[in-house]
């Protein structure tokens, strides 16, 4: 039995307030799946991802990746932060952002090598961003910025990818590029875990779901988790699975 890419046991997190944001969260993710973490606003989805990555403090609980704590295999875990948590006015070019994905492989005095650059160019090419490699990041659209961050994660050559809302506010072209990327990573038996906000697309993009609302409501294959009862349990009453199409168009516009 191979250790799962991600195993979370009894994880509890809180910020300044007395009430925990997440309480006794436990779930396990099998290898080679594309996983959506879904739940209502304020359910603690991003917090959960940050806790797993050691970016926010845990009150209690254990996280293991491939059977080891995060410190043992940081390089096998690539994290893609939410797009609006970055400084897009920073004076830096696309290529240099992507090469940051190699930082964990380099000593502090080392510069990226020619093979690192080749990797970065391949990653940019896969996401349709190679033509933009010398652009300053402030000149990119939101979707293009997201693709640069995905290319950065890709050059890390990780086994597990943790992404915070990669589909949020991106254009159709980027959406397609991300889905293609998911397909290729899945084929290579990599595991992808995304915080996701759009219930309508869960079944299209993902094959596994962790349903969260301050605790795990359900975790398993999409068909088993995305039932009206469980959705209602997480999101509360009066929630409709089918928002009007106009709302969806606005999002892509």
């Amino acid at each position, binding site marked *: 039995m191979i250790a799962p890419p991600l195993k979370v046991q009894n994880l509890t997190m809180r910020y300044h307030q007395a009430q925990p944001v997440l309480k006794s969260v436990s779930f396990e993710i099998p290898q080679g799946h594309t996983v959506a973490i879904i739940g209502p606003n304020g359910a603690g989805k991003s917090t959960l991802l940050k806790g797993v990555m050691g970016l926010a403090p845990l009150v209690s609980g254990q996280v293991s990746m491939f059977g080891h704590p995060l410190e043992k295999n940081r390089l096998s875990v690539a994290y893609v932060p939410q797009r609006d948590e*970055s400084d897009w006015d920073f*004076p830096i070019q696309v290529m240099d952002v992507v090469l*940051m994905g190699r930082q964990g492989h380099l000593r502090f005095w080392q510069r990226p090598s020619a093979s690192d650059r080749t990797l970065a160019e391949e990653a940019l090419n896969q996401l349709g961003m190679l033509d933009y490699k010398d652009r300053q990041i402030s000149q990119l659209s939101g979707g293009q910025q997201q693709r640069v961050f995905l290319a950065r994660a890709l050059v890390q050559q990780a086994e597990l990818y943790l992404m915070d809302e990669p589909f949020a506010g991106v254009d159709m072209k980027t959406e397609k590029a991300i889905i293609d990327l998911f397909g290729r990573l899945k084929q290579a038996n990599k595991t992808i875990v995304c915080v996701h906000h759009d219930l309508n697309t869960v079944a299209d993009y993902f094959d596994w779901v962790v349903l969260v609302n301050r605790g795990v409501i359900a975790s398993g294959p999409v068909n088993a988790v995305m039932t009206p009862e469980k959705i209602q349990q997480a999101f509360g009453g009066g929630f409709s699975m089918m928002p009007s199409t106009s709302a969806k168009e606005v999002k892509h516009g």
Partner: protein
Amino acid sequence: MMSDIWILATACLVASSCALVGVFLVLRRQSLLGDAISHSVLLGIVLSYLMMDGRSEIAMMVGAVIMGLLTAWLAEWLQKHPLLKSDVSIGMIFTSFFALGVVLISVYAGQIDLDQECVLYGEIAFVPFDTVIWGGESMGPRAFWLALVVFLVNVSVIAVVFERYRLMAFHPVLAVALGVSVPMWHTLLMAQVSLTTVASFDAVGAILVVALLVIPASSAYLVATSLKTMLVWALGYAQLSVLLGYGLAVWLDSAIAASIAVMAGVLLLATILFQQLIQKQSQKASLASEAH
């Protein structure tokens, strides 16, 4: 004539050091922390005077770095208090440290060869009078050599850890996720700020050093498209500020350090206005081309 050259050379080195570390302070939005460290460092210098019973460059640097790091750590620690905002905690710490330094200077005026005026505003015009004597010969002003050493240290450190500094400035969270020790590199940068401030004290004093840390780097931020070009632009703005400021001081017979800071501000303003002018021109041009 010779003393003019020493003054200019010292000012250029001091301004360059400030510009280089200032780039990272500006990018990390930590200008206030730079301000804080530059003030707290005074206490370190005063304590080193009292402990060594006189002036010792090494003791001064050690004292300054310790006080600088203490300030940065205390600010971070106080920020964790849920009711204290970060600017409040930084403001409290450095003003108290600075005040304590000033009190000690006035109490031990006999033992400390430091003048309150000089500490606040610096007096670069006096730099050539305090020279290093080696083998019976004058080797040039003490402040110049101190500024040169600190400048070389800054250039070397930034050249070596460039990739880590850039990652930490661009995205500290990502840096942590990649396994980079952000606290360690942050501490190194704060040590650089402290050292740079000590080297600048004789020349420009505690107040104006902040201008040199923040203003050339901010001007560079407006025009640069990469971190390397930003560092080069910051150095350029720093040199130009020194040259124009010195000219202004000679012309008006005014304080040199203050004139340099004034010119740094004028250059920043000019850059902003120039960029807005260009923006308007290109907007007009695109409107005109749409009309056709």
